[in-house]
C-alpha cells in the first residue's frame, strides 16, 4: 500500500466522522417534527402527500398498527413490482424491446427491491425496461430505504419514551424519510455523478466501432438518478450488470470515493440521531465507535489478505476482477463498506477476492449487517445485539439488566433471539440445502471450497439484505430465485417485526433514572463488550461453515492447491 492509500482511507474516516453529526442532527429534526431548512422547500409536497393518502400526520399509533401499515405498504410495493415485470413487454419505455421477465425471476427481483436487498439474479441492461427500472425499481430504492429508516425511528422512539403505547405514525415517517432525506440527497448526488460522466438519458442502446474494429453495444439510460439512491439508500442494485465497476456507473476515482462515502452517511448519521433522541450524544457515539472498530478490523484483515503474497500467482498483486482505474485499496474499501452496510453495490468482483477478503465480506453480512449497516436496518440490527449484550453482561452488576433506563426482560430477549435466529436460519439451512441438492450444485462455476463459499455468500447476502454476490454462482434459476427470495423476506421481516415489538414494549415501560448502580452503556468497556458479544455469538454460529469455505480455501491456496 502506498501513502496515498492510507491518506485516502484516513480522509474517508474523517469525512464520515464530520458528516455524522450534521446528518444526524438534520434527521432528528425531521422525525421530531421540528423546523428544518428543507421545510420551506418541500413542506407543500409533504402536506399534499398526506391529503392524497388521507392521513393525519400527527396521529400516532401503537406498534401493531405501525407494523400493519408497514407490511401492507411493502406488500403493495411487491405486487406492483412483480406485475410490471411479468408484463413489461406491453408497457412503455422499452426501447430495447425486452421480453417479459419469468415469474420466479420477477418474484425474486420484486422481493429483492422491496426488502432493500437489491440482489440481482438478472443482468439489468438485458432484462429490465426503462419503465421497470424507473417506475418500479427506482421507486422501491427510495421507499425500501425509507421503510428501514422508519423502523429505526420507531425503535428509537420506543426507547426514549416512557409509559406510552405510541411509537409514531408509519406513513408520516415514510413520507418524511423519502421527501426530506433521500430525495434531496439523491438529486444533489445525481448531479455530481453526471458531472463525472455517469449517463442520464432515455436513448436507445448505441452501437459503436471499437479500436479493434469490432462492434460493441453500449447500454444507455437514466443511470445517474438511480445510482445516487442505490448508494445513499444502501440498495446496491446496479443499473448495469457490472454495477459500480461499469464505467458509465462509476467513471472516475472521485465518483468512486463519493459513492463509498454515500453508502455510509445515512447509517452513520442515524447513530447521532439516536443520541439526540435519547438525550445523550455519548450513547450515539458509543454505537458509532463499535461500528467503526468492527469496520476498521474488517478493512484491515481484508487489505492484508489482498496485499499478501499469493503463491499461485507468483506473488504479484491480485488484480483479477478489479478495475485498473480503482486499484486494490479502493476495490477492497468498496467491498468492505458495501458488505458492512447491506448496500451490495460492487466495484470489483467479490468472487475474485482472496479467501480471507471474501470471508470478511461474508462475516460482515452474516453478523446481520450491523456495521453501519443498511439505512435504518444497521442501527436496529445493532440494537438487537445491544439487548443481548446488556442482558448477558448487565446481570453481572447485580441488577435486572436495563438499557437507557428500560428494563430488558423476557419479551425483549425473546424478540432479540427471534431476530437473530431469522438470519442464521436462512444462512445455515438454505446453504445446507443447496450444498447437497443437484439443483443447488448445478449452478456452481467453481469446484472445491470456493464453490461452497459462493453458495454461503449468496444466502448470507440474502439474509443480510445485502444483495452483492460472488458472481460465480448462476442464481437465475428456479431454485435460487425462490430460496433467495424467501431468504430475503425472512432476513428483512424476521427482524423488522421483532424490532417493532421491542419498540412497543420498551415504550410502555417506565424509565429508571441512572445511578452509580446502573450498568453504563456509553463507555469503552461497553464498546468492548458489545463487540465481543457480536463476534462470539456471530462467530460461534458461522465458524463451522466458514471453516469449510474460505478458511480451508486460504490454507489450500497457501499450499498452492487449486480446483
Amino acid at each position: 500500500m502506498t501513502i496515498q492509500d492510507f491518506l485516502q482511507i484516513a480522509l474517508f474516516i474523517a469525512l464520515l466522522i464530520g458528516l455524522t453529526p450534521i446528518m444526524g442532527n438534520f434527521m432528528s429534526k425531521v422525525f421530531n417534527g421540528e423546523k428544518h431548512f428543507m421545510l420551506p422547500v418541500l413542506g407543500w409536497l409533504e402536506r399534499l402527500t398526506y391529503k392524497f393518502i388521507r392521513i393525519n400526520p400527527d396521529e400516532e399509533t401503537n406498534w401493531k398498527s405501525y407494523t400493519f401499515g408497514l407490511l401492507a405498504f411493502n406488500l403493495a410495493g411487491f405486487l406492483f413490482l412483480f406485475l410490471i415485470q411479468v408484463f413489461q413487454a406491453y408497457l412503455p419505455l422499452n426501447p430495447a424491446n425486452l421480453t417479459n421477465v419469468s415469474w420466479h425471476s420477477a418474484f425474486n427481483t420484486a422481493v429483492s427491491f422491496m426488502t432493500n436487498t437489491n440482489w440481482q439474479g438478472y443482468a439489468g441492461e438485458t432484462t429490465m425496461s426503462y419503465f421497470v427500472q424507473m417506475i418500479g425499481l427506482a421507486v422501491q430504492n427510495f421507499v425500501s430505504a425509507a421503510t428501514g429508516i422508519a423502523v429505526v425511528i420507531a425503535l428509537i422512539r420506543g426507547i426514549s419514551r416512557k409509559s406510552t403505547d405510541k411509537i409514531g405514525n408509519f406513513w408520516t415517517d415514510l413520507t418524511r424519510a423519502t421527501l426530506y432525506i433521500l430525495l434531496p440527497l439523491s438529486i444533489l448526488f445525481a448531479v455530481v455523478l453526471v458531472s463525472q460522466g455517469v449517463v442520464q438519458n432515455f436513448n436507445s442502446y448505441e452501437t459503436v466501432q471499437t479500436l479493434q474494429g469490432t462492434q460493441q453495444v453500449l447500454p444507455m439510460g437514466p443511470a445517474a438518478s438511480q445510482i445516487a439512491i442505490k448508494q445513499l439508500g444502501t440498495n446496491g442494485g446496479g443499473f448495469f450488470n457490472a454495477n459500480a465497476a461499469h464505467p458509465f456507473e462509476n467513471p472516475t476515482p472521485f465518483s468512486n470515493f463519493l459513492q463509498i462515502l454515500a453508502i455510509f452517511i445515512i447509517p452513520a448519521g442515524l447513530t447521532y440521531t439516536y443520541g439526540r433522541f435519547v438525550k445523550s450524544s455519548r450513547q450515539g457515539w458509543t454505537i458509532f465507535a463499535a461500528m467503526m472498530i468492527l469496520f476498521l478490523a474488517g478493512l484491515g484483515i481484508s487489505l492484508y489478505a489482498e496485499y499478501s503474497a499469493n503463491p499461485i500467482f507468483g506473488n504479484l498483486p491480485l488484480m483479477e476482477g478489479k478495475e485498473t482505474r480503482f486499484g486494490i485499496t479502493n476495490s477492497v474499501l468498496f467491498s468492505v463498506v458495501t458488505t458492512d452496510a447491506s448496500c451490495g453495490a460492487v466495484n470489483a468482483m467479490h468472487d475474485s477476492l482472496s479467501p480471507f477478503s471474501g470471508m470478511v465480506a461474508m462475516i460482515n453480512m452474516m453478523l446481520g449487517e450491523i456495521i453501519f449497516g443498511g439505512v435504518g436496518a444497521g442501527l436496529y440490527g445493532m440494537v438487537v445485539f445491544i439487548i443481548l449484550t446488556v442482558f448477558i453482561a448487565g446481570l453481572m452488576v447485580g441488577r435486572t439488566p436495563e438499557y437507557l433506563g428500560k428494563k430488558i426482560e423476557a419479551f425483549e430477549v425473546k424478540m432479540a433471539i427471534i431476530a437473530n435466529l431469522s438470519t442464521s436460519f436462512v444462512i445455515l439451512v438454505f446453504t445446507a440445502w443447496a450444498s447437497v441438492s443437484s439443483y443447488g450444485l448445478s449452478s456452481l462455476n467453481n469446484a472445491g471450497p470456493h464453490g461452497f463459499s459462493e453458495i454461503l455468500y449468496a444466502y448470507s447476502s440474502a439474509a443480510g439484505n445485502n444483495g452483492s454476490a460472488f458472481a460465480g454462482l448462476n442464481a437465475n434459476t428456479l431454485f435460487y430465485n425462490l430460496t433467495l427470495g424467501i431468504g430475503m423476506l425472512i432476513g428483512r421481516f424476521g427482524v423488522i417485526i421483532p424490532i417493532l415489538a421491542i419498540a412497543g414494549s420498551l415504550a410502555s415501560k417506565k424509565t429508571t433514572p441512572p445511578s452509580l448502580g446502573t450498568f453504563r452503556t456509553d463507555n469503552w468497556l461497553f464498546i468492548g463488550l458489545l463487540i465481543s458479544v457480536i463476534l462470539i455469538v456471530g462467530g460461534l454460529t458461522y465458524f463451522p461453515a466458514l471453516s469449510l469455505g474460505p478458511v480451508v480455501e486460504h490454507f489450500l491456496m497457501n499450499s498452492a492447491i487449486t480446483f
Partner: protein
Amino acid sequence: MSTKHKTSLFNKKIVLQAAADSINKLNPVSLIKNPVIFIVGIGAVLTTFVVFAGIFQQAFSSFNLQIAIWLWFTVLFANFSEAIAEGRGKAQADTLRKNRTQTKARKLEGKQEFSIFATELKKGDIVVCETGDVIPSDGEVIEGVASVDESAITGESAPVIRESGGDRSAVTGGTKVISDRILVQITSEPGNTFIDRMISLVEGAKRQKTPNEIALSILLSGLSIIFLLAVVTLPAFFHYGLTASGLSLTQNLSLPVLIALLVCLIPTTIGGLLSAIGISGMDRLLQRNVIATSGRAIEAAGDVDVLLLDKTGTITLGNRMATDFIPAENVSIEKLADAAQLSSLSDETPEGRSIVILAKEKFNIRGREVHEMNAVFIPFTAQSRMSGVDLKTEGGHVQQIRKGSSEAIKTFILNNNGFYPQKIQEIVSELAQQGATPLVVAEDNKVLGVIHLKDIVKGGIKQRFAELRKMGIKTVMITGDNSLTAAAIAAEAGVDDFMAEAKPEDKLRRIREEQANGHLVGMIGDGTNDAPALAQADIGIAMNSGTQAAREAGNMVDLDSNPTKLIEVVEVGKQLLMTRGALTTFSIANDVAKYFAIIPAIAISLYSGKTGIGPLSALNIMNLGSPQSAILSAVVFNALIIMLLVPLALKGVRYRPVSANQALMRNLLIFGLGGLIAPFAGIKIIDILINL
C-alpha cells in the same frame, strides 16, 4: 429453624441424598423444565442407542461409549447441582417439621372449650393458649399478654412478649407459650400457615421461575436453537466438502460426534446450574434469617435503588443516650452529675440507665442503692412529666431532686419559689436545635444544669450508607421527629434524604412518588399502619415481631426483627443476579475453545489428498493428541466444569459494595476472560491424560 448452625456446603448426608435425587431427576417430565439439559438428555439417549446398535452389528465403538457415558454424566451433574441446593433447603424444612408435631388446639366456642386437632382450625376460630401450650396456628392475640418462645422459627431462645392490640399481637403456629394465658384468633387457613409456607419454599416444591430466570432461560434456549442449527447443517456442509475432496460420503459426521459438538456448544454450564443458583439465593436469605415469600422478591431486592429506613432502630440505637452534662452557673459539673445519677437510679428506662452510666464513666460516681439511702423514687408520670428522687437528709429535710423537660422543671422551680435562669433556657433551645433532647435537673428550688440526651447513630452505619451510595442506592430516613432534629441526625448518619414528622400516609405517598420516577423502593416495617407502605414497596420486609397485617403485606419476613437487614437483603439479591450473569458469560466464552478442539478434529480428512491430514488441522492450536481424544476432552471438560462450579453456584460470586462499573470490570475479568482461557487449559490437560 436451625439456621444458627449453618448447614455446611457439602454435608455427607445431603450429598448422598442429592446423588440419589440426581438419578430420580432423570425423569423426562422433570428434565424438560430445563430445556438445555433436556437436549443433553436426548443426546445421551440417542448416543446410547447408537452404542447398542453398534454392539448388535458387531461394530462396537468404545469412543461412542465414552461419549455416551460422559453425556449421561453431564445430565447427572446438572441434576446433582439442583438436588444439592434443594437438599440444603430440605434439611432446614425437616427441622421445621419436627417442631410441628400433631398439635391439639383448645378451640373456644362461646364459653365452651373443645379440644380439636390444629389442622382442623379454620380462619376466624378462637383458641386458648396457656403456659406450656404450643400455639396451634398463625393468629392474632385478641386478649391477654404472654411470653412466647419463638425459637422454633427464629432460632432465638429468648422469649418475646405478645399482647393484644398494638404492634406485637401476631403469633405464629408452632411457637410455645411460656407464661400467662392468651386468646388467639386464627388468621390463616389450614395448610397455609407461616410454617407451611416456609417449608414449601425452602423445599423448592412451589418454586416458580422468577422473571429474570425466565428471560435467561429464553436466551439460553434461543442460543441452543442457534447452535442446533449450526450443528444439524454441518453434515450437509461436510457432504459438499467430502465430495469436493473426492472422499467417500461414509466418512460424514456420525451422530455421536454431532451430539458431542452440540452439547459442547449449548450453554450447559449455566443451564445446569441455573436452578441451583435460584434455590441457593433463597437459602442464603434464610441463613440471614429472612424468609422471602417468592423468588421474585429476592430478584427485585437486587434492583432496589431507594431504601426507606426508619430512624429508630435502623439508623440510631433504639433509645436516646446521655452524652454530656452542662452545669448551670455556680454549679460544679460533679454536683450536677451526682444529682442526675441519683435522680435516675431507680429509673429503668434506657435513658435513665444511660445517665447513671455516663456519670459513672465520667466522674466515677458509683451507683448507689436507692432504698439504702432512705430515698423515695418519684416515677415519671404523664402529668408531671418528670421523675426523680426524694432524699431524707439528717435534718429531717426532704431533698427533692428532679429531672424532666424544661417546661416541667420550670413549673417545679417556680412552685418552689425558685428562679429559672435565662442561661438554662438558652442551653435548652440550643441543644434542641442540634437535634438532641435536653433534660433539666433541679434540686429543690435550684436548677443544677442540663443533661444532653442524644440519639446515638449506630456504629458503622455511616460507612454502610456510603457503600450503598457507591452501589447507586439512595437512602431516605423516616422519622417522626421535627425537621431540625431529623436534619441533624440525617447529617450525622450520612443518609441521602430524610422525611421528618412522617405519618404512615406520608410513607406511602413517598413510595408512590419514587416509583413514579422509575425507582424501585425497599422498606422495612412492623406496625399495622406500615402495612399499606409495605405492600406498595417493591421490597417490603416485615419484622417477625410485627403484626400479622404487616407480615401479610410485605414480601419478606425478617425473623430477627432487625431493621438493618434490609441492606443485607439487597446484597443477597444483587449477588444472585451477579452469579447468573457471571456463569452465563463463562458458559458462552467457553465455546470458543471447544470449537478449536472439535472443528479441526472432525474436519481433519477434508481436502487431505494422500496424507490424510487436511489443511484445517492448522486450527488445532491446542495440539491435541488425536481427533477422538480432542472431541472426548471437550465433552469431559464440559461435564466436569458443571461439578467444579457447583460450590460457586451455591455460595454465589463474591459480593463487594462497589459501583456497577467496578463490579462489571471484576466479573468480566474473572468470568469473561477466565471463561475464554480456562477451557483451553482444561481441554489440553484432559487430552494429555486421555492419551497417557
